[in-house]
């Protein structure tokens, strides 16, 4: 029997560059324990565990889910690891959703952690994901790929570096309200513009930090949601899409000839999610968007591709305050991925923050009258995109 799926508990640690107090397994455990307490459940109430675990080369411990299994009380339960690069956390939510929606389980724990700064060689590993024969020798890694995206968007719509800097300023400010955020504070456009050049148009402050910490979410079926003490957030719709590894095919796409432009995958994934959620006008029906944005250049094209505004208009709306609290849509109240990026759980954090907005428990980040909130996750330099829409009711 098909089941409604609700978020009934969440947990996350404080994120920082290097965690000298707790190991990977202990970070996952701390997040799992907080989510269990949040849901009023014990480990015995959890029927299955989904590990949100991206590449383990950063922490330098291969396939670390095996290590964390006991710590998150997964022993004796069915477990699976989900891995779609940066999109992992969103994919973990989609996997957990399927396990409950199908009626197989009543409760599923989604849990993970990451430690991005255990090695100074992160971009070395991020360059290993490209096609070995045609692209790896060209050192495209993730920052250069992010720069290409920014360049394409600037060329198409006349966006400027200052437009991207404005996103950083807004989101670092938002992160002041987020007790878990890694980077936060009042900064100026000039400070962003003056930060070290990496790959045009990207500068240091246009890029996310490498973060360490854990996150967990407990999904339950309708019965579990009814027992839940507070207001649950229901998963109303989800959509995901994959595209070729070759960036050159995404510029002139053979598989999607009708779709042109940077981040076209967001349009496909969002439309699938909206259809399932019954959303027809996202800018009116969705009050909060938690967007996966490791680079400042990604927020505006993502908003446009997901139908929150017309193509090329997001930067102008940014200046008018449309993406702030009280604006058209509150975009990344948490500060987003720009402020905190523990890759394995970054997508999970986006989903946790979106769900908590619907639950009315986002505290200082809370937007008023949230009917729907959206979360995205992006992996493989834009190759994988997933979108999840949360709402306050099941149907």
């Amino acid at each position, binding site marked *: 029997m098909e089941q409604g799926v609700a978020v009934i508990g969440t947990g996350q640690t404080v994120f920082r560059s290097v965690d*000298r*107090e707790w190991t990977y397994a202990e970070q996952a455990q701390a997040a799992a324990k907080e989510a269990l307490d949040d849901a009023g459940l014990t480990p015995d109430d959890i029927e299955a565990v989904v590990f949100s675990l991206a590449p383990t*080369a950063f922490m*330098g411990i291969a396939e670390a889910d095996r290590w964390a299994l006991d710590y998150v009380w997964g022993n004796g339960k069915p477990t699976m690891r989900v891995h779609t690069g940066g999109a992992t956390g969103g994919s973990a939510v989609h996997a957990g959703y399927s396990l409950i929606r199908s009626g197989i389980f009543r409760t599923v724990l989604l849990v993970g952690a990451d430690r991005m700064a255990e090695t*100074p*060689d992160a*971009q*070395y590993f991020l*360059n290993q994901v490209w*096609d*070995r*024969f*045609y*692209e790896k*020798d*060209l*050192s*495209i*890694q993730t*920052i*250069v790929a992010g*720069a*290409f995206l920014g*360049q*394409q968007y600037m*060329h198409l719509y006349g966006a400027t570096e200052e437009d991207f800097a404005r996103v950083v300023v807004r989101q670092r400010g938002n992160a002041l309200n987020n007790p878990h955020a890694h980077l936060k504070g009042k900064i100026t456009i000039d400070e962003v513009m003056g930060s*070290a*050049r*990496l*790959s*045009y148009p990207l500068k240091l402050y246009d890029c996310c930090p490498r973060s360490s910490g854990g996150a967990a979410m407990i999904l339950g079926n309708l019965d579990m949601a009814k027992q839940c003490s507070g207001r649950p957030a229901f998963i109303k719709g989800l959509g995901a899409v994959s595209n*070729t590894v*070759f*960036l*050159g*095919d995404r*510029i*002139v796409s*053979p*598989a999607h*000839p009708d779709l042109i432009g940077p981040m076209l995958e967001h349009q496909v994934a969002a439309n699938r999610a909206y259809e399932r959620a019954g959303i027809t006008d996202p800018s009116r029906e969705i009050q909060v968007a938690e967007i996966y944005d490791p680079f400042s250049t990604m927020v505006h094209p993502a908003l446009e591709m997901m139908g929150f505004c017309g193509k090329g208009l997001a930067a102008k709306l940014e200046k008018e305050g449309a993406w702030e609290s009280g604006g058209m849509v509150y975009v990344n109240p948490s500060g987003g991925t720009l402020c905190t990026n523990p890759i394995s759980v970054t997508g999970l954090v986006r989903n946790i923050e979106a769900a908590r907005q619907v639950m009315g428990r986002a505290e200082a980040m809370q937007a008023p009258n949230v009917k729907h909130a959206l979360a995205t996750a992006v992996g493989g330099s834009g190759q994988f995109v997933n979108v999840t829409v949360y709402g306050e009711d099941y149907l």
Partner: protein
Amino acid sequence: MSEKRNKGESMVIEDSWTARYAYPVGQVAGKFMEGLKQKKILATRCSKSGMTYLPPRAYCERSFEKCDGWVEASLEGVLEVATIVSAGFEGSPKPPYAVAYVRLDGVDTAIAGYVRGLDLSDLEAGMQRLRAGTRVRVEFVDEPKGRVTDYYFVPA
């Protein structure tokens, strides 16, 4: 492994990963790499969809049929997107350097390569010369070895 502990911090254990690999390139990439040695860029073509692919593909992503032909790509084309890298990254060339995706004439998809022959000391001026739509041509190193670094783009 060695132990290291700074004052007031928990102990840190140091380690490193090293591994060696040998990657068979397969028939499709193998033919492309052999072409590079002769200073040619070879693309695959699907007669059913009419698509011509770089990098070459075994199967067409639109018709799902096997690419049934090889064509020699033009050594001129259009720059689709580029960046100048100003920072040094582990395993990357010494900055500054330029990388671009270029659609060679007669080919439907864009292929990546370094861009040379540009003064990169002025970032803004360099990016002006790397605008989308700029015509570029392919040049080869003197002694190609069958790697994608055998070719590079220069402004036409």
